[in-house]
């Protein structure tokens, strides 16, 4: 029974990792850009929520709702004024600019908020649980997982059912021809990064409610997100959820055997998948 519990915890943890990864997956799918500061933006959003909670005395959920449009603006400006200038055939500029951004952001957060760990105040919800046939499931992990599924359903709807989604796909296929349709690729890219930042805010909310955070934890979140994306297969949002679950499961099982093995077990699971299925579990047919 303890194993069933461990596995369930692992799957639910995967929901959090899928939330970390969804924004990364979205942006890569549209403009082949990997933002190495993705994890640091999650941490930044967590501090933004914390700031709103502390200053205005709001609940974390309400604070996240206010932080979301702010982060949307951050994402839009970031892409429009910085990252768009790095796009092109050379992979160096986007990688090195976002790596520089990651270092700058971590240290700016360190300067602003110190290295002390923080946590979002959660009240009763952090300890609440539901009993399901002998299994006790935390409300917060369930809510995280449900949010991850909702985000992926939502992004898929956006991608395949809306005019903006058509523009995303068209621009990703061929930006020059898209501009002949009256689409401005730089604006489309800016919107994509802005939407990714909405998901980042949601990820930050659950990260901050479930565990401690400090300015240095961003790169590790980037790595988990990256592993989920690669395991799932580039461009597949549902694959990203599966990838997140696999990392979550591996970490939880690893930790159950030896607490020091938690992170290592996730990395090993990633390497095994990379060895057996280099293109991930659900690769897109056309690349």
């Amino acid at each position, binding site marked *: 029974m303890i194993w069933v519990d461990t596995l369930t915890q692992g799957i639910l943890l995967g929901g959090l990792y899928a939330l970390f990864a969804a924004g990364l997956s979205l942006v890569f799918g549209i403009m082949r850009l990997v933002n190495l500061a993705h994890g640091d933006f999650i941490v930044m959003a967590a501090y933004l929520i914390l700031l709103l909670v502390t200053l205005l005395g709001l609940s974390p959920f309400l604070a996240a709702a206010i932080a979301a449009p702010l982060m949307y603006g951050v994402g839009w400006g970031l892409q429009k004024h910085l990252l768009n200038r790095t796009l092109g055939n050379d992979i160096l500029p986007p990688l090195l600019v976002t790596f520089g951004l990651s270092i700058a952001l971590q240290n700016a957060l360190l300067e602003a908020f110190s290295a002390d760990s923080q946590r979002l105040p959660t009240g009763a919800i952090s300890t609440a649980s539901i009993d399901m046939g002998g299994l006790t499931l935390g409300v917060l992990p369930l809510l995280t997982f449900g949010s991850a599924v909702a985000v992926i359903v939502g992004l898929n709807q956006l991608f395949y059912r809306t*005019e903006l989604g*058509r*523009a995303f*796909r*068209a621009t*990703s*296929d*061929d930006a*020059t*021809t*898209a*501009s*002949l*349709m*009256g*689409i*401005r690729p730089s604006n489309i890219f800016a919107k994509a990064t802005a939407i990714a930042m909405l998901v980042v805010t949601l990820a930050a909310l659950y990260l901050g409610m479930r565990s401690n955070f400090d300015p240095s934890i961003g790169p590790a979140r980037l790595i988990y997100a990256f592993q989920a994306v690669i395991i799932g297969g580039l461009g597949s949002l549902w694959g990203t959820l599966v990838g997140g679950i696999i990392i979550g499961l591996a970490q939880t099982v690893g930790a159950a055997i030896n607490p020091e093995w938690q992170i290592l077990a996730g990395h090993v699971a990633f390497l095994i998948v990379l060895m057996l299925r280099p293109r991930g579990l659900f690769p897109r047919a*056309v690349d």
Partner: protein
Amino acid sequence: MSLLNTQRLTAHYGDFQALFGVDIALNQGETIAIIGANGAGKTTLMRSLSGVLKNDPDMITLEGRRIGGMSADEVLPLGLAMVPEGRCLFPSLSVEENLLIGAYGRKVEGYWSLATIYDLFPILAERRNNPGTALSGGQQQMVAIGRALMSNPKVLLCDEISLGLAPVVIKDIYAAVPKIQESGASLIVVEQDIGQAMKVADRVYCMMEGQVTLEGTPDNLSRDDIHAAYFGVSA
């Protein structure tokens, strides 16, 4: 004043100059054809007109408005759409989505809509849910034309729409041109097939080495004139 004008239009790809002072005019309701050998600058002219290549603002005017310095996404809302060479359908989009994206972000008043384009090319209605790139070359060309029409342009640029297609298919494609003309659009057609160009055009420009070497109506241009303008040798 004509609908669309170029004034001493020049264009460069880096250090390479592709156009040397091209002057053309398109009048309201008119169809003109641009003919010329490979490398004459026809596609460069189309890319300049559509905003894919940016030029000096004064070099191109649409309804008196200087558009030479605008990008493609700024030119399109002013009423100038292009069917690009090689069709360039979006592989991730279905046929219908390819058409819909032609009217991206705007409510367009005008004759052309999904329904009228399916009237024009009924086969597309049957294939509406297929990926655009799963179609035959001729059908893909129909999608590309329909996609450009969806914005109800005042000026439609057609770059090499018969390229690589079988003669019978070319006939089908060109059968649509009169209906497009009736809808009120003015056309610039780039063609390597001189006979086809003469059939649809009110006036013809012939280009060679980045310049216009001949202009006239199909009736008053002799084969020898065209030959000379095309290949740069006097007959």
